[in-house]
Structures are given as structure tokens and as C-alpha cells.
């Protein structure tokens, strides 16, 4: 006889509801993207026309290019800035360490819209307004705390004797950094870079305020499209991005182990 366990059943039900809640909008987007009828459910067929339209749109392709370049540049910059900060925080004790940590993590505490507006006002004041540099700076500041968190965790797990062993056989500080430290924490670096890129790729508020004309990242482009157009091209584009993200997750999982990435 199987005993009915109320606790387990409740947990299963809640989990199922949560999963549905999370997956439902994604599923709807994908269904709409292959449905010949615009935004009318249930679907009455299958078509890839919307995908074709999305991927042949010059505006979208350009937005994607902008987002790609911006994401890579911002992720690179954020990690280059976060690594020395993480090293200083992990390896030393100094007065003001806790305060410095809070300052470095503070972009997480300020709502992005307010932060973007403040940054826009700042750049206008110093005579830039919106532009490529402000856009890059904004994205970098926004994602740096995430890079700092992941790299701090990686460096915590790094045994200092690896570096000492390199120094004693004759490697200087720089050589040790590139030959030992970075390769040993490469999982953390890859995770950090990937997360930073995704955050930049998904960002909307910073780009709205700071992107210069002709350099509109994809999310902003997408938003202005759905403001005026009522076809499923946007859904197809969103669907493509969902599939690409899923692919990225699979790749990161294969390379680094997703559990490790999420834990750090």
C-alpha cells in the first residue's frame, strides 16, 4: 500500500505551478512565433515566415550586431576591472575593506532606471549626452558587481600556494598571473564573462538613455518595433533569442558545469 504523503504532494504541486508560471510566457512566445495567424491562439498551423522576416530585417540584424559588440566589450571591461578588485578584496585585510566592497557592489542596489537617468544627466553635464562611450560605461558599471561576485568566489577557492610555487621557480607577478592564476580560475572567468554578456545583452533601461542614434541595441530596437507593429516578427525574434540562450546554457554547462557557475 502506498501511503499518501501530503507534504510531498504539496511540494510537487507547488513546484509544478512555479515551473508552469516560469515557462508559460516562453512557451506562448514560441507558439506565437510559429503560428501563421498574428497573435491569435490557439494556433492553426506552422510557419517559419516570422523567423525569416525577423532574420532578414536590417534593423534587427544591426541591433543584434550592436548588442553583440557592446556585450563583449562591456563584459571584457567589467572583468578586467573586477579581477584586480577581487584580488585586493580576497587577499588583503585593510582599513575600509568592507566599505570598498559595498561601494563596488552598489550598482546592484540602485534601480537600473534611476541609475541610467543619473548617468545620462551626468554625461550631459560633462558635455557628452548619449554616445558610444557613455553606453559602454553604463553597461560596464551595471554588470561589474556580478563579475566581482563570481571572481571573488573563484579566487577564494584558489589555493595561494599555486602562485607561490610559480614565484619560487622564477616566475614574476605578471607571468604568474597569466601562466597560473588565470588558467586555474578559467571556469570562473568564463562564467563571469558569460553572465556579464547576457546581462548586457538583456539590458533595456541603460541603452534607452545612453545609446546614440544609429547604435541602438537589440532590446531597444525590439521595444520600438512592438510599439507600432502588430505582427509576430517580434515574437519570432524573441523566440530566436530564447533558443540561443538555451544553447548558451548547454554550452556553459558542458564547459564549466552549470551548477558551479550558479553556485559561485
Amino acid at each position, binding site marked *: 500500500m502506498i501511503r499518501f504523503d501530503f507534504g510531498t504532494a504539496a511540494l510537487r504541486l507547488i513546484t509544478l505551478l512555479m515551473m508552469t508560471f516560469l515557462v508559460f510566457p516562453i512557451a506562448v512566445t514560441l507558439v506565437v512565433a510559429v503560428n501563421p495567424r498574428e497573435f491569435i491562439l490557439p494556433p492553426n498551423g506552422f510557419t517559419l515566415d516570422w523567423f525569416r522576416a525577423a532574420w532578414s530585417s536590417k534593423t534587427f540584424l544591426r541591433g543584434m550586431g550592436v548588442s553583440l559588440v557592446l556585450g563583449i566589450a562591456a563584459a571584457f571591461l567589467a572583468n578586467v576591472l573586477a579581477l584586480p578588485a577581487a584580488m585586493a578584496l580576497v587577499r588583503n585585510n585593510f582599513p575600509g575593506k568592507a566599505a570598498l566592497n559595498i561601494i563596488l557592489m552598489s550598482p546592484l542596489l540602485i534601480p537600473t532606471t534611476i541609475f541610467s537617468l543619473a548617468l545620462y544627466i551626468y554625461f550631459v553635464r560633462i558635455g557628452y549626452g548619449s554616445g558610444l562611450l557613455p553606453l559602454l560605461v553604463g553597461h560596464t558599471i551595471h554588470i561589474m558587481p556580478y563579475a566581482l561576485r563570481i571572481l571573488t568566489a573563484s579566487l577564494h577557492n584558489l*589555493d595561494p600556494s599555486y602562485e607561490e610555487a610559480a614565484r619560487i621557480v622564477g616566475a614574476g607577478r605578471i607571468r604568474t598571473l597569466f601562466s597560473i592564476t588565470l588558467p586555474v580560475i578559467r571556469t570562473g572567468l568564463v562564467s563571469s564573462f558569460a553572465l556579464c554578456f547576457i546581462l548586457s545583452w538583456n539590458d533595456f533601461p541603460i541603452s534607452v538613455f545612453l545609446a546614440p542614434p544609429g547604435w541602438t541595441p537589440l532590446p531597444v530596437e525590439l521595444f520600438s518595433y512592438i510599439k507600432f507593429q502588430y505582427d509576430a516578427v517580434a515574437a519570432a525574434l524573441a523566440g530566436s533569442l530564447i533558443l540561443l540562450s538555451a544553447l548558451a546554457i548547454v554550452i556553459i554547462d558542458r564547459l564549466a558545469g552549470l551548477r558551479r557557475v550558479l553556485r559561485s
Partner: protein
Amino acid sequence: MSDDAIQVSGVVKRYGATTAVDNVSFNVAQGEFVSLLGPSGCGKTTTLRMIAGFVEPTAGALRVNDRDVTHLPPEKRELGFVFQNYALWPHMTVAENVGFGLKLRRKSRTFIREKIAESLSVTGLSGYEDRLPRQLSGGQQQRVALARALALEPQVLLMDEPLSNLDRALRVTMRRELKELQARMKMTTLYVTHDQEEALSLSNRVVIMNKGRVEQVAAPYELYENPATSFVADFVGITNFLEGSAVGVDGGSMGVRLRSGQVLRAVAKTAVTPGAEVRALIRPERVTLTTKPVDGENVLSGQVILSEYFGAVLRYSVRLDGGEILRAEVHNFDNFVETGAKVWICVLPEHLRIIPQEGQG
């Protein structure tokens, strides 16, 4: 000029208010094997790490082969270092680990390959060149770590508890191999350990440290036979301490008046002022124990409160008539003495050491 390979002079390391290493000085001669021995937290590892350049001394000077290295970074010191946790670089193969230092020195490819093969054969790991560290056992990893240090033919080899992460049987094997290797290569070695067996069996001389200070620097034999302080006596081997005051006995030799009023005679090794508070030190295996009354010099009487039978040796705890507990270890020649028996214990004057009590000068 000096012939010493390592000279440590007046080295101090303070972390805030705590002093980890307090005015430590000792030398290591060319080709000598010296151990730093002490309980955990005694400053032995910090001292070694200062010599390697991983820790900056607060004061004092360090010389390696007569070169002042006190303020040199580790990469300029030309030392070998073997870590407790091996510290093999996980992303490099065995060969890459061993060859990394040679590559930095821009040696030719053939030279590096030959040197890797040579170092691995010395440590008994030929054929493991392409393995990754995680594919090796602890003992094998430690051999790679040793090969990595030896490949550079360092002037001095520093080892930080290299065997403490291995299981006991392997530790004993590796200890013998290490001793053979060191004797063969005549490599100056400074070895940190908390294991007195390792220190005594491997070293030419041992530096005993306690609470950041050097207690004694001496050959293993001297440490055991002539400990300078009660800490050394207690840390190296098992020792009985009997407290009393120093008395001068017929001219040259010394004596100690125990609390019971009895005077024991000892051969004077260190000068002690008569009347000073001292400890008489008696090794358990240096006494004779009988159940028949004995008269004469240096005889203590008491009652066995615990007797333990170990086959080859017999161990007794005896409560002396003065109240002190004395441990005795005798070989199994005589009859086993049961708990409760009245016994007489003889100590020859040359087996009795007198050392000043700590903290009283």
C-alpha cells in the same frame, strides 16, 4: 664570508599585536639537512616562508649562500620549495609542472626534456610525464612536487611538512627515500615538521621552536640526551620531571634537592646557581627498577600505581614517596611487577639532567 648556505639572523615577524616569530637566528651549513621542529603555531612555517620570500620579515636579515635575500622577491632567490599540499598546477601535466621553471629560464627544448626525464627518474616517476596532477595519488603528487623543485638544481631546498598529508606507511617509505636522495645529492635542505620522528631521523641538526622562539639548535642525539630547556625535553621523547632546588655536591658535580629532602646527584652539564629552582630530568628508559630494597646513591622508592605489559617492554607509573609520579620503561628481562608493589628505582648520575625552571631565569 661564510660557508653557511642559509643564515637567519634575528628574524622577527609580527602580525599586529601578535608576534609569530620572535628574534630567530640559526644557520644551515652547505649540504646539511636541518629541520625546524615544534608544535603547530610555533612559527616554524612562518620562518620557512620568510626564507622563501612569501612572507616579509618585520625585522632581521636572511642570507642564502652569502647573498642578502631579505628584500628579494621569491623568484629572485633561487630556492626550491616543496609544499605541504603539493601545489601542483592543476592545468598542467606532470612534465609541464616540472619543466615550467626551466621554460622560464629559456633553456633549450631538448635540455628541458632531458631535465624533466632526469628529475622524474630520480623521484621514481618515469612514464608519468603526460598525466595530470588529479590523476595521481598523494604520494605520486608529492614526488612530482619534489621533481619540480629538483629540476632547477636549487642551491637550497625548503620543505614545508611535505609528508604530513600522506598515510603513515607511505610516510615512512617516503621519509627513507628522502633521506637517501638528500645524502646522494648533498642538497642543503631546511625541513619543517611537527613530527619529531621525522625530524630526528632525517636531520643533521634540528632547530626546536616554541611560541616563536628557538629553544635549542642541536643534533638529534644532543636534543634527546641534553635538552636545553624543559620544553625540548618534553617535546622530544617522553620525560619525567622532578622539581627541586639546585645544590652543589662535592665540588664539580651538581645535585638536586627534591621536595622530600632527598638529594639526587647529577653530572653537571650546564652551570646552575646553587639554591635555584630546577627540574631534574629522567628519561623513563634510563632507570632500573627492582622490587628488592636497594641502598645507596640516587635511589628513589615508591609504589607502582599502573603497570602496563607490552611484550618487549614493560611500562610503569610509580608514585614516589615524595609524591611525584615517575614513569619507567624497562625491557622484559625481569618479572612483571604488578600494580601496588613497592619498588626501588635507581638513576645513574650521568642519566640525570638538571635544567633551570622556565620563567625563573
